[in-house]
């Protein structure tokens, strides 16, 4: 393809699956995704694009790759769907490989380009159609596929077994008793106010973060519970592959647990994609106009308990801090102002990145790029050049990232570009700086 020059990267999930495909299968998948599933939006978006290039500069991949035109949002559509239509659907395996590479590793689906397009053409929708097409054929980064299979069999992303989950919570509870008197973490309690769902990683590798979140829950005195069955992991990696079948399965499970336990609200910890998926992306696919049970993000929860005075900040963070606005909760749900309220309560010296809030650049790891695993680490490091420049400009040594993906992404960027800074979650900061009420001290 003219102007499309990339270093070859080998990914079993893409290269090996493509080998097994034949023309007939590809044709059927195109038929299914573009003729049956895609709606009128697909057609008019493609027809209306005037190729004015207004979207180019909105894209961090384009800017990070020295304005290589093949990274511009409209070019990515041209190189995938445009190419497919020009070839009337008769595509080669090499074409499919290119589509998968562009859709999974050169676009984060951050929708910043949609804000920049004079027509409001939803370029991310077009790229997600490409992901869906590849996903239906099983052509996707191996690491994403693995997580999706894990969701299918265990409702969590890391093949975690049910007894391991209960065991994890129990030992965290034990340890918390050093800091909080008679700490009790309810599992499967009925009629609680809040059902807390957590990130698979928090249960498996990042237990200190989970422990901090639970500490905040206990200190704030809210009535909460965790699920005692599979379905405690709110992540929904199928969103990245646009595997709607698994995606709705997982979301349905969460709402079912909530209604069985008769809770009033579902709370998730700091994550981006799962919030969007459960709140509207898969809720819509399940036929709900809105989330059937209020579904709130940790940012909303922290804001609420801070405003209501349920927790108090004992001492503020001294070092210069900046804030990463995760696309999935800010551009996708307007949590920017609440996020700023929390950060101002926490930090003495807070500087904004420019641009910020809904115009913020993606961390270059979102939309499944971090989940695409080691083969694609280079892609997100290259694409994150703009982000790291933004961070350097603020001169902050602390980057607050209230999203697992942003956290990991920025951590890798900082390490690669050797910037003197570190990344933290809100839960870690709040737990470290809040006051434990007198009655809860051991």
């Amino acid at each position, binding site marked *: 393809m003219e102007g499309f020059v990339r270093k070859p990267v080998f990914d079993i999930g893409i290269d090996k699956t493509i080998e097994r495909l034949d023309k007939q299968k590809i044709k059927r998948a195109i038929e299914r995704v573009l003729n049956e599933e895609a*709606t009128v939006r697909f057609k008019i978006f493609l027809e209306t694009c005037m190729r*004015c290039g*207004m979207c180019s500069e909105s894209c961090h991949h384009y800017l990070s790759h020295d304005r290589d035109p093949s990274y511009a949002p409209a070019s990515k559509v041209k190189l995938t769907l445009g190419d497919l239509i020009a070839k009337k659907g008769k595509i080669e395996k090499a074409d499919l490989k290119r589509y998968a590479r562009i859709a999974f590793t050169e676009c984060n689906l951050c929708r910043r380009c949609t*804000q920049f397009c004079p027509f*409001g053409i939803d370029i991310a929708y077009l790229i997600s159609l490409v992901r869906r097409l590849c996903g239906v054929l099983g052509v996707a980064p191996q690491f994403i596929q693995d997580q999706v299979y894990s969701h299918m069999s265990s409702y969590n992303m890391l093949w975690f077994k049910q007894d391991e989950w209960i065991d994890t919570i129990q030992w965290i509870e034990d340890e918390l008793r050093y800091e909080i008197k008679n700490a009790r973490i309810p599992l499967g309690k009925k009629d609680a106010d809040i059902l807390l769902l957590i990130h698979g990683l928090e249960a498996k590798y990042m237990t200190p973060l989970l422990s901090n979140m639970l500490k905040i829950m206990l200190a704030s005195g809210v009535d909460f519970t965790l699920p005692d069955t599979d379905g405690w992991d709110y992540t929904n990696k199928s969103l990245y592959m646009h595997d709607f079948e698994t995606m709705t399965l997982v979301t349905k499970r969460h709402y079912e647990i909530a209604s069985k336990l008769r809770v009033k609200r579902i709370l998730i910890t700091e994550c981006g994609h799962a919030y969007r998926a459960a709140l509207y992306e898969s809720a819509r696919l399940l036929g709900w106009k809105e989330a059937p049970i209020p579904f709130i993000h940790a940012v909303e929860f922290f804001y609420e308990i801070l405003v209501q005075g349920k927790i108090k900040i004992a001492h503020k963070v001294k070092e210069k801090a900046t804030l990463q606005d995760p696309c999935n909760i*800010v551009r996708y749900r307007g949590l920017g102002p609440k996020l700023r309220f929390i950060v101002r309560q926490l930090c003495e010296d807070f500087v904004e990145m420019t641009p910020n809030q809904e115009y913020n650049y993606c961390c270059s790891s979102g939309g499944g790029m971090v989940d695409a695993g080691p083969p694609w680490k280079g892609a997100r490091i290259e694409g994150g050049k703009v982000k790291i420049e933004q961070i350097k400009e603020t001169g902050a040594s602390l980057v607050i990232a209230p999203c697992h993906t942003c956290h990991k992404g920025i951590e890798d960027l900082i390490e690669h570009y050797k910037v003197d800074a570190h990344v933290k979650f809100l839960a870690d900061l709040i737990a470290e700086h809040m006051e434990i009420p007198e009655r809860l001290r051991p």
Partner: protein
Amino acid sequence: MTFFEIVRGPLAWVSFLIFFLGLVYNLYNFFKKAKKDKILYGYFSFKHTIRSYLFWLLPFGSYSMRQRPLFTAISYVFHVGLLLTPIFFLGHIELWKESWGISWWALPNIVSDFLTVLTIICGVILLLRRFLVKDVKYLSTPVDYALLVLVILVFLTGFLARYQLVFTYQVIAGLHILLGEVMLIFIPFTKLSHIFYFWLIRAHTASEFGAVRRSKDY
């Protein structure tokens, strides 16, 4: 019938008819197919749509436009000229009066001349931009150049006809009318259809960004 009489008479009817029928057909098709899409009707928000139209129609109203001031200014003038001159140019209104006896307020000739020249200049700059700016050049297809050239030619022949330069009035005005009619016919069937798809796509994106995502699309 002379060439001028043909373009002034039957071809004008044909082009307006095709334009309106094409427009109705496209919109009918869109609204029918939109029913299949659960998101388009279900989440339409009037308030956010109006908000988005406003910010995108005002010059420099959107963040995106403020980031690209030069391109915005050129493109804005180009579109204003493109919309105002055909409708409010005195000569065009005279023709309507001659045929149907209807007339409306007209731009002073000096203003419409000025707008025409500006539109041509802006059009040429946009065309050069397609050739010279790297990302736009990469994106552009032959159709994109051709449509822009067509629009510029319509305005150029119009200006020449008004001052009866180069050719006799009948020839140059006939050519101008013919090209205008070709453009009119092309609107529903080419990328020029963005004239009406703008409103529909903006409404969808505005509703999604405003009501569902509680964020801004401008």
